[in-house]
């Protein structure tokens, strides 16, 4: 075997290693970009959403105890990324996996339709919160941890960043966020952003509870919220 061949084989392996590493966080192109570039049909979005509603509820509010996250109001790029990651096996979620498959949800157009619909749903005014109210030492410490570690990417109010695929976290259920945070810290959530894994690696369990408690209590701007916690989605009656 000549040297040239050795080099090209090494290059192929190196390329594979890099593509695997980058895929864990963000695979550009493909159906993600395609779905985000399409013009959404909101009416079809309602039809597609019906399959999601069986767990995330017709309001998109998930469950307060945190088994199912709130989707309402989430940035569409984040929704597309997570759906694509789950259906490509890049985020382990055996309960959701079959629902994310093309035969359940549909093609890139269906993805575009459903995420545009979800993004516009009014949010739950009564999300699950941590135990420490404003003014407690734990709340204040959580706020400090947030300012020091999270604000640069997730924003002052936890509003996220559409362009960078950073999720909106304001108004999310405490238990859901706590579980994801722990999985990201401990390497269980494979599509985590490596910068976040690095940022939070020294967080203790108590730090984690305090920072997530704070995030669960960031007020959601009124114009994004449903008028009451008893609001029902009129698209499904």
């Amino acid at each position, binding site marked *: 075997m000549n040297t040239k061949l050795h080099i090209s084989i090494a290059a192929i392996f190196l390329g594979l290693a890099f593509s695997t590493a980058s895929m864990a966080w963000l695979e550009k192109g493909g159906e993600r970009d395609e779905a985000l570039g399409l013009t959404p049909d909101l009416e079809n979005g309602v039809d597609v959403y019906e*399959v999601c509603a*069986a*767990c995330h509820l017709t309001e998109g509010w998930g469950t307060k105890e945190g*088994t199912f996250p709130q989707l309402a109001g989430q940035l569409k790029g984040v929704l597309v990324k997570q759906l694509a990651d789950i259906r490509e096996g890049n985020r382990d*979620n*055996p*309960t959701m*996996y*079959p*629902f994310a498959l093309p035969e*359940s949800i549909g093609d890139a157009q269906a993805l575009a339709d459903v995420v545009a619909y979800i993004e516009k749903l009014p949010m739950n005014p009564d999300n699950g919160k941590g135990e420490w109210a404003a003014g407690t030492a734990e709340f204040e410490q959580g706020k400090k941890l947030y300012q020091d570690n999270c604000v640069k990417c997730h924003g002052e109010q936890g509003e996220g960043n559409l362009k960078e695929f950073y999720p909106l976290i304001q108004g999310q259920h405490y238990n859901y966020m706590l579980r994801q945070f722990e999985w990201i810290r401990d390497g269980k959530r494979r599509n985590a952003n490596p910068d976040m894994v690095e940022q939070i690696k020294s967080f203790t369990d108590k730090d984690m509870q305090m920072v997530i408690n704070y995030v669960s209590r960031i007020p959601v701007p009124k114009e994004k919220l449903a008028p009451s916690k008893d609001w029902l989605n009129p698209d499904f009656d």
Partner: protein
Amino acid sequence: MTQSKLIPLLSAAALLLASSPLSAMAADGATLYKTKTCSACHGKDGKTPLMPNYPKVAGQNSAYALQQMKDIKSGARNNGQTASMKGVMHLVTDEEMQVLSDYLATLTP
């Protein structure tokens, strides 16, 4: 109260007593089937599953269904597609599993 008035009243009360636990259970079963997200995978009617390899559960024997639910929740059964279902089983208590399995048995297969 005369006897003629008492008898219909008593029979109405008896009917109410006899029928209410049953109808309450049926309603609870149907509600639980939806709110515990069973319908998401097994279909609204229990016989139109989301995936071709997911089981139809309508008309399933109550004792069998109950045992599978308990075993999937505890992890004693962890083959097949149980990983999908285990993710939601912490939402369901033993009592609710009983109501659900009785409800499934009443559905037409």
